[in-house]
């Protein structure tokens, strides 16, 4: 890249951005169109406008009110469920992955190498392979139709993030841990007061990825939560699509989809600096 001229680099990046942003922009445009123009845009009868002639902001309220069987209740329930599940999963993943990563990086214990390899091996297992055994396990525990199957596993660490935390913590000087020991902290105290605050870039990556993954997770809530009032936004959006998937209602579908995506976009913008720093410091590569 060094040999490329700056203007060419900029042009390349701008072109890439257009390709990536086009679907999002198109969703925004369609979500603000009248039903007729939105349907026409979908079928290509009426080309795509850069901005709707008469933006229909009311489409958003209409879409959210139509989610679920009672006006607004379905959306509010789904939003609350998504927030609860995602918050628990993010907290659980960050705490458990950083703690286990710290143990793999700094504590010396018999069998550490074998367990670390075993843990890495679990990354090779596709989710579909463990879906049925996990379902049977959670059913045996009586956890179906509760959020426990979605939240509890997060408190047992995630192999990829454990690996990431371990690699990052290995770069933290040993003397900081020793200084904390002299200052009177045990292993848990060292992890909480020294290691976790220093792992902010990795925590940002872990939190953002986990948030996006959980917020958009469709399969988990679909399998474990069956009542409508238990639906998360992803499941509610799917029901909405089944109900309003026709060309006449595509503007509502786009509006609902955009609202569902919004938290992920906002979170990424908020955590962008830490996120990029984490990637730049080789937290992922190790």
């Amino acid at each position: 890249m060094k040999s490329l001229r700056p203007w060419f680099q900029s042009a390349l990046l701008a072109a890439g951005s257009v390709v990536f942003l086009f679907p999002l922009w198109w969703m925004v445009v369609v979500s603000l169109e009248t039903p007729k123009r939105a349907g026409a845009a979908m079928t290509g009868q009426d080309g795509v406008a850069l901005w709707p002639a008469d933006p229909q902001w009311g489409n958003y309220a209409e879409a959210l009110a139509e989610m679920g069987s009672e006006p607004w209740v379905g959306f509010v329930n789904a939003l609350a469920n998504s927030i609860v599940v995602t918050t628990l999963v993010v907290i659980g993943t960050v705490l458990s992955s950083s703690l286990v990563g710290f143990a793999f990086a700094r504590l010396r214990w018999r069998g550490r190498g074998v367990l670390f390899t075993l843990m890495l091996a679990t990354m090779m297992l596709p989710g579909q392979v463990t879906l049925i055994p996990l379902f049977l396990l959670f059913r045996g525990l009586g956890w179906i139709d509760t959020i426990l199957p979605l939240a509890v596993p997060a408190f047992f660490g995630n192999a990829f993030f454990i690996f990431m935390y371990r690699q990052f913590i290995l770069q933290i000087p040993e003397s900081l841990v020793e200084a904390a020991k002299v200052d009177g902290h045990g292993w848990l105290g060292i992890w909480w007061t020294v290691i976790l605050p220093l792992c902010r870039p990795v925590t940002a990556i872990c939190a953002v990825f986990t948030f996006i993954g959980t917020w958009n997770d469709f399969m988990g809530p679909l399998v474990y939560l069956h009542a409508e009032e238990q639906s998360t936004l992803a499941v509610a959006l799917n029901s909405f699509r089944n109900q309003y998937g026709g060309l006449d209602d595509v503007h509502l579908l786009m509006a609902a989809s955009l609202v569902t995506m919004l938290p992920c976009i906002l979170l990424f913008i908020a955590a962008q600096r830490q996120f990029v720093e984490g990637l730049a410091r080789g937290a992922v590569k190790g």
Partner: protein
Amino acid sequence: MAEVILKSVGKVYPGGMRAVQGVDLHVRHGEFIVLVGPSGCGKSTTLRMVAGLEEISEGAISIGGRVVNDIAPSERDIAMVFQNYALYPHMTVGRNMAFGLERRRRHGSLLRSLLSPAYAAERRAESARIQARVDEAAGLLGLRPLLQRMPRELSGGQRQRVAVGRAIVRDPAVFLFDEPLSNLDAKLRGEMRTELRILHRRLGATMMYVTHDQEEAMGLADRIVVMKDGLVQQIGSPSELYDRPVNRFVASFIGTPTMNFIEGDVERDGNAHALRWAGGRITLPAGTTLTTARAAIGIRPDTLAPVADGPFRGTVQSIEFLGDRADVLIETSGVRLNARVPTDSARAMREGASIALGMPSVVHVFDGDGQRAS
């Protein structure tokens, strides 16, 4: 202030590597003792065993009359200054200094202080005491203007002072320093050395200090422990080590420039001994006891001086001016000798010219096994 006593202390790592063997050491109340030696000699391992950061494989360590072998570092009443300072990067200077005390304070529960006003008052009083101690230590080291800064905003010397301040705040029985000046440039190192010496005098604390720099050791220590291959070679005051090294290793390690050694065959003449080598023969000092056929004499470079005719004759190879003195390298038959002479004397010399050096006032004699024989 406390005594530190090491009895037959050893460290064996998994795999059988012996890092430290049979160290016996008695650090007195208020003494500044420096462990010195080349890399891998076991000095840092010994210090870390005193700190509790390394398990002790053999022997016993006691601090203030209490055996601490199985006691956690935080319970040993020590404070340690690390080579890379080990300041917590996410805390301000003030918080770094208070951190150890905050952990120790009796009234630590924030939740309880919310529920009980009396408890909250005690907690506030304790926080105020901690703050007062931080402020006192900061004043002692000139750190008051830096208390709100983050470690990354400080220079190397300032970070070093914060690390020392963090130790002072704890008011420990023993201060442990693990090569604390090695990351500083030469000028700052000299300044900090003086500051540490003054600090030791002011606090009157027991201090154990590790360095590989013998000049630093000589400048700081009440007594020096010279180590090699995990073994203590000699313990003594700087002048004892300089004037009467017990073996060739200590003799070569202590002193700048390094001591000159001339090896040769021992000749006996009644009770007297002489050493003959390719370039000459000298009679060894009275009282020398040698049982080996080979021996070596050691001569400090600053005891050699040019003369019209002397026992060491050779050619001047190089002259390095150091201000008031100069280091002169002289090639004699089979042996290279370093001489440190006054600059005036060096000005009269020319590289490549012949020179004779007089018999030095002090000659150290070492037997064939490298042990002192005079």
